[in-house]
């Protein structure tokens, strides 16, 4: 069995297959990176809208609430399919890859928005009131008082979520996107040993998510443990 696998290695790792795997890994990395960055930016904006008390924003607040609560309760795959087939029905001629980028960003935004909102709400509103009486504008009290105290509560769960999220991008394979999992399927269908193929896929997933997980742990130990005393400069 082992000798069979060893003999299989040179057959699998031809330059063509290596390029296929690396290309797929790049797609997975891009899906993850775009999902994380967009998720962080939009999730942030969304939670700001949700925690704001301005009356003009209430229609936006209701939309944000519906969006966050629905997307978080629907399986990743269903959201992806919705976007994939929804785009076709509406006549958009998006590539599967573009659809996957949009769908994964929509999903990560919803999850990050909820984490950020919880973090912002954990800062005692009385401090915000104290700032208001000292004539801080809403914006000033947000940047100077609320956000610096919410960060340490927000970052660790956001990073754990991102690590999960990278693995969820595998579902884009269901829409025909050539990312890591899809590459694995293609290679096994071509007759290469599944153990070898998925072994390689596993290593590539690990290479992508490990640095992020480490960064998360690092931030957690730096920020989490110190949030009740001296805040140190974050990374």
């Amino acid at each position, binding site marked *: 069995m082992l000798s069979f696998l060893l003999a299989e290695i040179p057959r699998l790792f031809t330059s063509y297959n290596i390029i296929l795997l690396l290309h797929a890994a790049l797609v997975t990395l891009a899906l993850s990176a775009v999902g994380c960055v967009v998720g962080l930016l939009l999730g942030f904006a969304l939670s700001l809208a949700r925690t704001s008390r301005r009356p003009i924003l209430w229609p936006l607040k209701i939309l944000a609430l519906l969006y966050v609560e629905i997307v978080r309760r629907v399986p990743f795959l269903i959201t992806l399919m919705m976007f994939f087939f929804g785009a076709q029905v509406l006549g958009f001629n998006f590539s599967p890859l573009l659809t996957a980028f949009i769908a994964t960003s929509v999903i990560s935004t919803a999850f990050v928005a909820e984490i950020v909102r919880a973090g912002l709400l954990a800062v005692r509103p009385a401090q915000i*009131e*104290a700032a208001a009486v000292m*004539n*801080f504008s809403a914006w000033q009290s947000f940047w100077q*008082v609320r956000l610096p105290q919410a960060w340490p509560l927000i970052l660790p769960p956001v990073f754990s979520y991102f690590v999960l999220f990278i693995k969820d991008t595998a579902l884009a394979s269901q829409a025909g996107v050539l990312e890591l999992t899809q590459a694995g399927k293609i290679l096994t269908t071509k007759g290469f040993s599944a153990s070898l193929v998925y072994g390689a896929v596993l290593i590539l997933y690990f290479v992508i998510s490990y640095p992020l997980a480490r960064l998360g742990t690092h931030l957690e130990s730096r920020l989490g443990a110190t949030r009740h005393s001296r805040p140190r400069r974050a990374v």
Partner: protein
Amino acid sequence: MAQLDIRGLVARYNDTTVLDGIDLTVERGEIVSLIGPSGSGKSTLLRVITGLLRPRAGAVSIGGEAIDYGDRRSLRRAREKLAIVFQQYNLFGNMSVLRNVMVAPVTIKKRARAEVETEARLLLGKVGLGDKLDAYPDELSGGQQQRVAIARALCLKPDILLLDEVTSALDPERVGEVLDTIKLLAAEHMTLLIVSHEMSFVREVSNRVVFMADGRVQEAGPPAQIFDAPQMPRTQAFVSRIMRHGAASDA
């Protein structure tokens, strides 16, 4: 001209009327204390004055200027003249003691940093925290945090300082250090509006004591009148109840 002038002030939380037509003036340099049972509206009155709760009716003016609580610029001008110290201190948890005191004068009032820092150090020294400048609020006791909050309020150079049950959240042995700090302000003729349950303290520092119940001013007068010879039955009942229970801890 009164430093603070309140006429017919009405405030509600949802459908509950918490302030039901309050009239109150505080003259420049005067120390007025609000006393009364919990739920009588004392703290709510301070919330309304500071613009944290919008009044439904009535008028408030500070330094002779009427405040329009619906107008941001008017509220901003009013807030420039006042400062409040809260029961729960409400220091900014992400800032050192020194920065807590300096942040509003420097970033909001745009005063010169060096000048503010000198003043902040002086004030923190005065409240006995000259050696805690770099500490963070969570590293301090309640009494120390409250003294930082007082220094923070003073660094705003307010025309009137509001104190909202500043000793209620403190351990009994910490109450004295905060009250002593306030007595220093009284000695300097700072205009103070105090909400307190520390009756012996109120009696000692106040020029005038206002007894509130059910969202109304029931009786107002010099401490000797309110505590020794109250005129109204409600005041008499409140005072005799307090005296029977040996007052709310002596400072």
